[in-house]
């Protein structure tokens, strides 16, 4: 039986097909989010099925998650990204106790019970300072690609002090830093530190190991190290971090179909 998970995130749409019998993902795809979540989700799902040579009837159930989940008409059910990330991460890392998920527009912290269910959670719900949006802003301001930020951060010697309170304020700071001759590498490292500090402040002292880092921002080189420094704890990056929400949604689809 195949379950499909669609994660309609704010920056990217992800689709995963999970084969319950074989216990593994059979296909997955990511595409930049547009304005029409529904059409994009349908297209990506159909494309995956076509590429894998799977008839639509093989998909027993579809679960949508993410910011735009309610707009995905092809879904049989919707489940929040909080629950889906917990299920998706535990699939990859069965002993995960704390999950840090940083996406394009928000960040989340999840504490899991020993059985993998969510104990409780917190969301950075207003400012983009603790999210991937911050990295986009700085990349744009520095004229760098998102994928080059990791290399830049690695070449930093002294991360620049940048506010973790507000992206708009931080952007002004970056302009000032550039004007004063600060190195781009140090600015990028400073931004990574600011994002990590913001997330660490949400987590407070409630850090239970192992801490697993997931979400699209976990793909950015240097972010895991910045997070580990801010938390003063080791941080492991989840395999396929951008996909954990969709993987969780697909696993939940399988469970619901079997129930």
């Amino acid at each position: 039986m195949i379950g499909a998970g669609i994660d309609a995130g704010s920056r990217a749409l992800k689709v995963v097909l999970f084969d319950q019998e074989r216990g593994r993902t059979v296909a997955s795809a990511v595409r930049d989010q547009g304005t029409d979540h529904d059409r994009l989700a349908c297209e990506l799902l159909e494309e995956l099925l076509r590429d894998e040579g799977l008839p639509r009837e093989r998909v027993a159930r579809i679960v949508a998650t993410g910011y735009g989940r309610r707009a995905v008409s092809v879904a049989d059910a919707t489940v929040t990204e909080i629950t889906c990330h917990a299920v998706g991460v535990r699939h990859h890392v069965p002993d995960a106790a704390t999950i840090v998920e940083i996406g394009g527009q928000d960040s989340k912290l999840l504490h899991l019970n020993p059985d993998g269910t969510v104990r409780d959670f917190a969301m950075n719900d207003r400012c983009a300072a603790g999210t991937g949006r911050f990295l986009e802003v700085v990349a744009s301001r520095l004229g760098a690609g998102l994928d080059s930020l990791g290399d830049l951060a690695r070449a930093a010697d002294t991360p620049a002090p940048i506010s973790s309170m507000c992206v708009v304020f931080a952007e002004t700071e970056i302009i000032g830093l550039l004007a004063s001759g600060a190195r781009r590498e140090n600015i990028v490292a400073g931004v990574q530190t600011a994002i990590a500090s913001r997330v660490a402040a949400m987590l407070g002292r409630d850090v239970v190991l192992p801490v697993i880092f997931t979400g699209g921002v976990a793909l950015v080189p240097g972010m895991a190290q910045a997070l580990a420094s801010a938390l003063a704890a080791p941080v492991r990056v989840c395999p396929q971090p951008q996909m954990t929400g969709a993987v969780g949604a697909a696993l939940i689809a399988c469970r619901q179909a079997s129930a």
Partner: protein
Amino acid sequence: MNLPPERISMEELDLLCERRRASGASLPAYVGPLRRHVAEGDRRLLRLQYDASPAAMRLWSFLLTEEERLHAARAAGVKIVGTMKDLGTVPVLAYALPNVVAFYPDGAWWTPCLMELSDGLFRIAQLLGFGEAFCPVRAMLGAFVNRAHFPIPDLLTCSAGAVCDDFSAIAQCVESLGHPILWWEIPHRRPPEPDETAVELPGGFSAPASQVAFVRSELDRVRSALEVLAGAPLGASELAAGVAQANRVRRSLAELRRLAYTTEACPMPALEMLIAEMLAIHFCSDQAETIRVLADLTEEVRRRVKEKHGVLAEDAARVFWVNPVADLRVMNLLEDCGGRLAGTEFLFSHALDPIPEDLPPMEALARMALADPMVGPSTDRAARIVRDARAFRAEAVLVSRIPGASHCALEGAVIARVVREELAIPVVEMEVPPVADSMMPTLRSQLEALVETVLERRKR
């Protein structure tokens, strides 16, 4: 008329109101269709879901006609007292006097939300230097300036001391605008030292006798000012009667809360419970009518409990809600997401406890004022939340933060820690701005995730 319980739109509630009038039912003069308030600018009413009962219709009409009542009182020569930063103490004194009504100017913080910011109260506050970083209570400044809402009170009282910094700054600005304030001081409640005499407070806390005596002396000053305003002494028997009358409101609310939060099939929606509980602190400018409104609501709830009629799915996640929200739609949203209220702590749990009637009234009021959750340590407040959440069998606690409100900026973490340690149930903090339109998808995600977490826990 026994209607099946359900949540309905404003238009449907108005229809219910018109049918009641047409049927010859005896309704108070203030009860009428809510669309009249929309016409006056309260556009948010169009987007709320209401309980489908005549009792709820009366509750809403009562709430939304408060300013009319105050203006009518002014026209009739009744003295008006504005009791600022006061969650249920001075109004008890004021209503014990003849020809005096008390109201809560701070309540203007809901006006911008109900009017979807069209009233400009925040804009006026901004011009006075109180921008978004301040508590939404800053809307009160606008109401004092534009005089388009409540009449300017004949006497303004305000507590100072163990109150939030934002509020103190806003109240000082009110005074600087030419509205003299009688300040009375409330100290930070502390546990008695070993060599101090301990006094038991309502709510299960204690304080040194010296603190109680100090608060009593402060309230005596307020009492004297009220007597001068009323032109009549406030005798012991009148005061005792005033306390007894306030306790009628509190007992009525206690019964309503017990029924609403413990019954399996939720008999009253969250939104109406929020409005009803708010009546405890200032009686919506009519204490006697408050008692009747609550009696109606309690009667409706009793009937539903007896008939096992709930307004929500029986498996709704039981959520204990901490702090009031300015955007009332969020209370609807909790239920849309599969939750229900199972207890509340809207910052004034002490105003729901009976004022001791076996003590001299001023002593009893001083003790009650010191039991205010906002004047003591956050751990005290958390302890109360734990006790009530346990009693109401809550499955999760939601702490809703108010942007800019300093009294709840950090205590959420304390509450979360204590609740987790004591009850081991999920605790989630979420920020609800006064007009939360742009935040609705995020708020929905958080509430849905909380409900999912609760339902998953039930399977374990």
